């Protein structure tokens, strides 16, 4: 997952979107880019790097003189068993209107009953985001008419959100400098989700599905601290990591469990007031976020450069993945007046010190702390980011190190062979039969010279697929490394004897053939010969015979 994600981020920059908007001017660059768009996928990493740097340069050039301001509103759907204000379950993908009751349908006379889990989750996340908690907060009604909003108002929190003034720490991927960034969190508040509209194919009518109505959400509002699509995507990824670490949400963007609305504005450097902000919605991956934002920045820069900054209006734009651009969804005619007022049906939410302390104590080690710890263990930033991305991977890593394996080696095994296996088999680390103890055993066995690295790899795949113990596999398959000098000598002798022609060539000066002989001996030993010993003896024998 983590791997895929970082690839995703990287590939953004080879995508043409940040540049596409420049293409309105028919230039050579335009053509070249159009070409590259078609060719991007099959190209190799070298091309990608090239493309990335060129894109970056181009962007920098065009960004000259402007400052980008990005703020993000994130909606996190909470993984509670029941909805926020009634006892209906929420199961993604259920038949329309099967998980509803009079309360979440907003039938006359019904009243909301707050699910205490929602408060617990909100406190968890607020603490994890280093927020100040409001020990007494309340709910408010946000009023507007829409068919997916059954009551005609959304129960939300307005002037006293449960959490305020937090921060979130992010490490940018090393290919983008690996910089450490800290972004401010303005507020975290609890609210309910709305239902969904299903539009008929003909467009002549719409249907309302209220399954999602009343599902608990946490809205996280960031400070306008992000300066690029990448930073915004990294911020969102960190929020996803946090909610998954905390177990408050599955954080799945495709299912809409994690939704980001991004506000983007630019202003000439030195200007005090903010530029007109544009809201972008409908991005269902981090890479889409990155691309959408960079596209929007370029669009706004272009308008500025063309002296048409008045064309940047306060509006909501949708990211069209298919076209790789943002399009106007609705223009805001003045500020919407939601006529907030305190929700009279729900008493104030009062937290006690004990309650908060209990939750604080129950918090797991959070991604940022984990990254700093791994960094201190001497791991490279690439390793750190990979391991800390997923708490199950991190747990696996920690357990393996706890069994006595060297951290760097464990990281290598997890990031290379295990990650590749998981990716191919579409599994998560919790699905495999390999245990941290056995991985540690593999690593220690190699280090101790009991098995070769090659055998180690074989054993690893055996363990991943079928489980078992290293000890048993070694015994069953007779895989212990041969370190007996006599045995290796015998094998070398045998190989030399069986290949007189090559031996002759070797002696004739074709010393490269040493590799060939080594291979033959290794084959003879079924891969078990200790390579160092093998090479020493082989060389000795080859030279002795000359």
């Amino acid at each position: 997952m983590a791997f895929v994600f970082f690839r995703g981020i990287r590939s953004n920059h080879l995508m043409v979107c940040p540049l596409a908007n420049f293409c309105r001017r028919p230039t050579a660059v335009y053509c070249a880019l159009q070409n590259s768009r078609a060719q991007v996928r099959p190209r190799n990493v070298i091309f990608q790097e090239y493309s990335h740097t060129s894109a970056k340069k181009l962007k920098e050039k065009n960004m000259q003189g402007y400052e980008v301001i990005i703020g993000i509103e994130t909606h996190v759907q909470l993984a509670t068993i029941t909805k926020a204000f009634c006892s209906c379950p929420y199961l993604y993908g259920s038949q329309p209107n099967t998980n509803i009751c009079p309360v979440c349908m907003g039938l006359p006379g019904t009243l909301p009953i707050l699910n205490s889990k929602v408060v617990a989750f909100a406190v968890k996340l607020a603490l994890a985001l280093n927020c100040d908690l409001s020990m007494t907060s309340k709910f408010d009604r946000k009023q507007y008419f829409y068919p997916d909003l059954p009551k005609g108002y959304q129960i939300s929190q307005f002037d006293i959100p449960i959490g305020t003034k937090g921060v979130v720490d992010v490490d940018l991927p090393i290919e983008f400098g690996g910089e450490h960034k800290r972004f401010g969190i303005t507020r975290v508040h609890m609210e309910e989700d709305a239902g969904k509209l299903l539009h008929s194919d003909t467009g002549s009518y719409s249907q309302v599905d209220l399954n999602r109505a009343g599902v608990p959400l946490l809205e996280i509002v960031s400070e306008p601290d992000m300066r690029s699509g990448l930073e915004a995507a990294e911020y969102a990824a960190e929020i996803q990591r946090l909610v998954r670490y905390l177990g408050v949400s599955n954080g799945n963007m495709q299912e809409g469990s994690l939704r980001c609305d991004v506000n983007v504005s630019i202003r000439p450097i030195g200007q005090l007031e903010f530029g007109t902000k544009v809201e972008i919605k409908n991005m269902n991956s981090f890479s889409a976020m990155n691309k959408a934002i960079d596209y929007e920045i370029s669009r706004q820069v272009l308008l500025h450069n063309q002296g048409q900054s008045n064309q940047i209006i306060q509006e909501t734009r949708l990211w069209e993945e298919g076209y790789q651009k943002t399009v106007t969804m609705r223009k805001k005619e003045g500020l919407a007046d939601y006529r907030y007022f305190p929700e009279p049906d729900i008493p104030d939410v009062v937290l006690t010190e004990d309650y908060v302390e209990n939750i604080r104590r129950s918090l797991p080690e959070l991604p940022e702390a984990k990254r700093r710890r791994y960094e201190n263990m001497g791991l490279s930033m690439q390793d750190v980011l990979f391991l800390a991305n997923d708490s199950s991977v991190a747990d696996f890593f920690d357990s393996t190190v706890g069994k006595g394996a060297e951290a760097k080696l464990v990281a290598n095994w997890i990031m290379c062979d295990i990650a590749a296996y998981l990716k191919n088999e579409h599994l998560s680390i919790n699905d495999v039969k390999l245990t941290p103890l056995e991985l540690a055993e593999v690593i220690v066995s190699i280090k101790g010279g009991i098995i070769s690295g090659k055998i180690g790899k074989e054993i690893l795949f055996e363990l991943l697929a079928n489980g078992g113990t290293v000890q048993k596999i070694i015994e069953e398959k007779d895989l212990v490394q041969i370190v007996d000098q006599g045995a290796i000598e015998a094998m070398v002798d045998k190989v030399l004897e069986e290949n007189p022609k090559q031996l002759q060539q070797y002696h004739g000066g074709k010393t490269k053939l040493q590799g060939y002989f080594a291979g033959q001996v290794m084959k003879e030993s079924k891969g078990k010969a200790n390579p160092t010993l093998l090479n020493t003896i082989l060389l000795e024998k080859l030279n002795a015979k000359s």
Partner: protein
Amino acid sequence: MPFLIQSPRLLLPPHRLPLPFSRSLGRSDAVFRRLFNGVSAASATLSSPPTTVETPFSEILSIRDSLLSHRRTASEIAGEYRDRLHKVEPQLHSFLHVSETAMQEAEAVDQMVAAGRELGPLAGVFVGVKDNICTVDMPSTGGSEILKDYRPAYDATVVTRLRDAGAIVVGKTNLDEFGMGGSTEGSGFQVTANPWDLSRVPGGSSGGSAAAVSARQCVVSLGSDTGGSVRQPASFCGVVGMKPTYGRVSRFGLMAYASSLDAIGCFGSSISDVAILLNVISGHDKFDSTSSKRDVPNFAEELVSLSNIEAKPLKGLRVGLIRETIGAGVDAGVVSAIHAAGSHLEHLGCVLNEVSLPSYSLGLPAYYILASSEASSNLSRYDGIRFGNQVGSEELSSLYGNSRANGFGDEVKMRILMGTYALSAGYYDAYYKRAQQVRTLIQKCFKDAMNENDILISPAAPTAAYKIGEKTDDPLAMYAGDIMTVNVNLAGLPALVVPCGFVEGGQVGLPVGLQMIASAFREDILLKVGHIFEQTRQGYRFVPPICGDKYS
């Protein structure tokens, strides 16, 4: 066919009847006997006062006694009520819907009696339910065209509790649309008449419930009180009306008008009936998080019977007459009735003082801002999308607009507009926030007054029932009629209205109610005082001519 209230009570044997609320059976027997002995004693004293004393007794306990002693069947009693209901209904229009299963339910009660099974406290009792309270087996319209023929998917908690107690929900009573009004003329369907004078309003918004009890179309009824909607019609119709403390009774299933003020209340022809009904519907409900978890005292059990009433039964009780409620603008007849009631309370041993609530006059504007604001939000759900009447349209905004324009009446539209305005950006601080500050002030005023007094008294309305159509063109005059009651809702306190006298009007005069207010969750004091007051008041008979003449 003798009307129950006229039945020869002296002949009723003192049965040992188990009253189901009490934790100890023996004690409840005693209560019943106390109540009964009280009634007997009242009748025994009939000879002494010159005028006829009509001491109300508990209709509910009488029905219970008839059933358990096998003197009458539930079907007979139900038949009698049903006949009377249908007989006066064409003149009164108190009901929007009458149950079709009431007689079967009565038969089921008879089967339970025959089988010797335990009866609930309201077994066989006809209860009218205001139409803004959801019932699964009858339409619930809230008096609004927008919900015409709407059938809820569930029973309100109070209705569930009524049914569990054996009650027969006889029908849905008329009201001002969604409870917004003070005369029941604001119903989307029909105008209810006052049983004392058919040319007059029954009050509102729970006018149907009050008229139905007054005309004995049902034994007791439920109403809702947001700004006086139980107490003012109780006063107009000459019945007992109780607005409990906010949170005492679950609001789940009550179509919300102003959530922070709404309270479901009770109507009955006697304090005992109201006390028994209140016991049934009170208590915490997990479906209403604003409902209180406080214990509910056994209100009925705590009533003192007349036989036990000493010369000064209320000795030492401090009663404060709210000065601001008997000044200018209040009908002279009403003021003198209240003064008379005050004197009567003094006679019973109370210490009567005038008390001033300086912020009293601020209550009315604050109420109308808060109630309209909440209403504008609560009524958003009537959008024609999921239920109720939809006026189809090509465009979403006109679907909303047309459905609501057609469905809502003028008063409702006016309040939605006022509330929307008050909550709008730039006005919130000047209106909603300010009104909330007034509310806090009023709560404090009451608290101060309650430190000096055990109960406060005032009229329930500035006038007796007025003519139908008299105020329909003058909303401000209509709103001013709520001056006596809205403060109590803003403070969330319990208040009881007991008929206390008459003013001139109609054939036989028009009833006037005395409002008594207590501290939060002290309904018990109100009922105790009300019970003694009701048993000892002299010379009044609160049975309206529409039924009284025929049964006397």
